[in-house]
């Protein structure tokens, strides 16, 4: 009897543990869709400091954690430029933030960011999150990682979309689903974003050594 009882107790424990685990939200830190995103004050590649509050006419932002070194981030550079050119006039500019620690990833240093921005002639701000505070607050984990935020009546920024740009990082010509554009089109028309979360493989953020 004892032998039979033990696995049963064990199973109940497991079940209970499973229930507890499933009650915990998927990501335990960072923003979820619907949260209010904090503003920041970060240094752009031109030396100026940028905050979302500075963009008086913006209806929102395409906050993109990206970098110089990740092949996926590089593959998306041109598409990020296109995204900015298409949606900045509609009130949603791209704000790119490099989250990587320059000690861990020297090619992501501020100087290298300036270099890259010049080479690619970025039409958007490319900001350096030197302390990684903003990256942590947003909960970005990979590059590229997009947070599309929408300005509310009270001026706060509500997270409307978290995810990737489209369904093919490798080859822009094979893209079938433009996830970010679909979300932006809905936001521009003040509609609810129908697919507010998407995922993609990306490079892990290079965190500063503790």
């Amino acid at each position: 009897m004892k032998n039979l009882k033990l696995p049963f107790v064990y199973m109940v424990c497991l079940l209970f543990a499973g229930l507890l685990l499933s009650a915990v939200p998927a990501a335990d830190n960072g923003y979820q869709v619907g949260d209010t995103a904090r503003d920041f004050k970060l240094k752009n590649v031109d030396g100026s400091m940028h905050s979302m509050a500075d963009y008086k006419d913006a209806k929102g932002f395409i906050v993109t954690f990206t970098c110089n070194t990740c092949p996926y981030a590089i593959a998306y550079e041109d598409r990020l430029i296109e995204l900015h050119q298409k949606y900045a006039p509609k009130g949603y500019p791209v704000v790119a933030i490099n989250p990587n620690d320059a000690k861990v990833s020297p090619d992501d240093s501020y100087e290298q960011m300036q270099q890259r921005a010049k080479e690619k002639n970025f039409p958007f701000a490319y900001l350096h999150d030197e302390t990684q505070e903003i990256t942590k607050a947003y909960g970005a984990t990979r590059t590229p990682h997009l947070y599309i935020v929408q300005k509310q009546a009270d001026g706060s920024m509500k997270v409307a979309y978290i995810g990737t740009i489209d369904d093919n990082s490798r080859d822009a010509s094979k893209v079938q689903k433009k996830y970010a554009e679909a979300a932006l089109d809905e936001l521009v028309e003040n509609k609810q974003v129908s697919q507010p979360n998407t995922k993609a493989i990306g490079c892990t953020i290079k965190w500063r050594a503790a």
Partner: protein
Amino acid sequence: MTKTIYKCFAAAFAFMLFTVTSAAAQDVKVVKFDELQQLRQSPGDTLYVVNFWATWCKPCIKELPYFEAASAAYKDQPVKVVLVSMDAAEDLEKRVKPFVQKRDLKANLLLLDEADGNTWIDKLEPKWSGAIPATFLFNNKRGHYEFVEREMTQEELQGLIEKYKP
């Protein structure tokens, strides 16, 4: 008669084992997500250690020797190390295979040929944001499961394998 049949089976089995093991070394198998899903659902009493990496991912490359070492150290035990490359299938010949050759990788090697992570990442693990390296350890028979979305130290990996190995 039965003896002959038995012998025949044994020979066939030995041959199969031989081809399987010799093919496993250095060969990269290109798979779609459903095959990966099958692996994830393997019912046996084996600890699977499945690591997602890519030739372009620096922290992944740093970790690879730990997985290789584990694959060698536990080769006679029910512990199976599988390295799943996130490289593009187009890069198989020119990047992945030369890399595997150069590093002399011995663990089981797969290349997941799925361009859109959004179609499969959540099916594997909703907590996974998509950053690599990422590692899954599981033994479905015993209901063991662990998911790690970051670079691991060799000690960490060893610790997890020791904790879960049957």
